[in-house]
């Protein structure tokens, strides 16, 4: 039962948590946007921007945390563009989102080529290193998997707690959730739905960009074209799978990542029996199946994708 032995190895769980990290950031980011009533299909492009911005900052001499900050800022900037078009102007969130993804991706590739015209192999940076937490990282398997990761992974887990706390325990969180469920109630409280939604989209986009930056600054050490590779779309599926709750989304992301880590190991084990592409397809197919499974009981935020105009019902 070699295939099952994989599941009890420490390296498997270390990899699963590592693969989950960018998805946690991205899923949280999308969750915040959708909770406020805005579907952000710019996610794939915003992650690409974050991956490039973070990596390029470090490549140009900045330190790692500056890179994370620049990535978040770049993400928020595209979030602002998305929010301006979809919230006060009320344009189609589908069309604008795809437009943002196309724009963010092409601007990134353009900038990359401009900054590094002649490179054949992408230059490397010194990425975040694992930072074992004393004591906790000594616990067998789970301790090693959870507590000998890079600082960005810890940040991902902390973000889940922070977002959950803000959404459910603060007036701000109540306003965000209400903006996605019943915006006129928010307006009745004297709070601007437009401001809440735009802020949520910018904050969410910043998180997505950090998820992208994780790829170039923690998981790998350089920037490749197409490196986001559908992770943004998977995050959108994970938001539905996690029924718009940060905790459930976290579990979904870890389950998904465990599956992804598992298929990579199965590829090595079953090499030659099945083409490797079959294994690479599995995560995408799994996302679709997960959507079908939860679809019947999925309760979307009621005002998701519905533009709000003051004084209208």
């Amino acid at each position, binding site marked *: 039962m070699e295939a099952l032995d994989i599941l009890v190895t420490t390296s498997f769980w270390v990899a699963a948590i590592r693969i989950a990290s960018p998805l946690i950031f991205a899923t949280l980011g999308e969750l915040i946007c959708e909770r406020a009533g805005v579907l952000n*299909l710019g996610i794939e492009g915003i992650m690409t921007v974050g991956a490039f911005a973070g990596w390029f900052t470090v490549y140009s001499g900045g330190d790692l945390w500056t890179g994370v900050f620049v990535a978040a800022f770049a993400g928020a900037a595209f979030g602002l*563009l998305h929010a301006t*078009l979809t919230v*006060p*102007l*009320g*344009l*189609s969130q*589908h*069309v*604008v989102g*795809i*437009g*943002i993804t*196309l*724009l963010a*991706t*092409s*601007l990134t*590739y*353009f900038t990359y*080529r*401009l900054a590094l*015209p002649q490179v054949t192999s992408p230059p490397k940076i010194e990425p975040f290193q694992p930072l074992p937490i004393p004591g906790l990282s000594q616990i067998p398997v789970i301790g090693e998997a959870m507590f000998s990761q890079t600082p960005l992974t810890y940040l991902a887990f902390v973000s889940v707690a922070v977002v959950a706390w803000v959404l459910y325990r603060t007036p701000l969180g109540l306003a965000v959730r209400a903006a996605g469920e019943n915006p006129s109630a928010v307006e009745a409280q004297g709070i601007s739905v*437009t401001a809440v939604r735009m802020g949520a989209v910018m904050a969410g986009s910043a998180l997505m960009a950090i998820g992208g930056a994780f790829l170039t600054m923690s998981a790998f050490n350089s920037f490749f074209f197409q490196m986001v*590779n*559908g992770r943004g*779309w*998977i995050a*959108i*599926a994970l938001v*539905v799978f996690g029924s718009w709750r940060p905790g459930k989304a976290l579990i979904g992301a870890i389950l998904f990542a465990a599956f992804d880590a598992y298929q990579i190991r199965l590829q090595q084990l079953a090499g030659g029996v099945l*083409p490797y*592409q*079959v294994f*690479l*397809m599995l995560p*995408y*197919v799994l*996302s*679709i199946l997960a*959507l*079908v499974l939860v*679809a*019947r009981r*999925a309760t979307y935020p009621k005002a998701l994708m519905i533009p709000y*105009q*003051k*004084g209208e019902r």
Partner: protein
Amino acid sequence: MRLEPKPAPSLGVLLLYPLGAIAATLVFVSLLVLAAGASPFSVIWLVAKGAAGSQFAALETLTRATPLIFTGLAVAVAFRAKLWNIGAEAQLYVGGIVTVVLGTGALPLPQPVLLPVIAIAAMAAGALLLLGPALLKTRFGVDEVVTTLLLNFVVLLFVAMLLEGALKDPMGLGWPQSSKVVADAQLPRIVTGKRLHYGFVLALAAAFAIWVVMKKTVLGYEMRAVGHNPEAARFAGIPVDPVLMKTALLSGGLAALAGFSEVAGLKGNLTLDLSPGYGYSGIVVAMLAMLNPLGVVAAAIFVAGIFVGADAMSRSAGVPSYIADVVVATALLTMVTAILLSRFRVRWR
């Protein structure tokens, strides 16, 4: 701020808005060109010359426009019924797969029969591929945006698998490519010695046919009604789910024709770079055309011109050719904004 509907402006005023969008796009892209250390005026001139400055350039632009017309039509049809098909890329590749499978000698038919058979089979495959997400949408309420997007990745991996396995070209020296289709499965060239092929004529015919369907048939009316307000459409007795199914079949079939036309008319075989994102560019084409099937032709030629012109410009001016993708994406965002502003007035407070 709030939006107030405007009285319908005159045609002259209405045309000012798209022009404004084009101007805004040009200004933004000029800034990028300046950042690249080139002169915007010479770059714009080089792009225009590269897209339409010679017979070769113009024919190349029309060649590049051909798949964009098909994917643009696919998106226009789907979006009209608010079926968010973001999977034209996958449907295109499925069309390409069918063309190669049937066109490499599997069917011993004469050309006048073989080509239509392959085209119809390709359409059927693309239609079926979109039928899945459409059924998931109507039966289970699964959002089709995510499923069609994810299928793009699945299908591309499937193509990679075929090109290293069942469809691998034995003479390909290990390159991931299929064998060439036989001569009878190739669309003839329109001008001998040039790359423009009869796929372009097929694309024009498709655009006209879709225009007729949308404007003159009950189905077209139903699709518009479903897209406008599904609840009202249902209340008015329009069978919403069957209309969405028909829309999906039509849209998927059109996108698959792009793959058929690229393989049978231009490339001759299937590779992993058959489409440099024609499925996604099709969304821009459809939106620039305001979902009008005849407008799709003009928008596709415009977008193709940007790509072809930017390739030529990039070689001589040293500005990365990714600028073309930036132009196209910016044009999409400025155009949807312009269309909105032509209909609504922004009131501050």
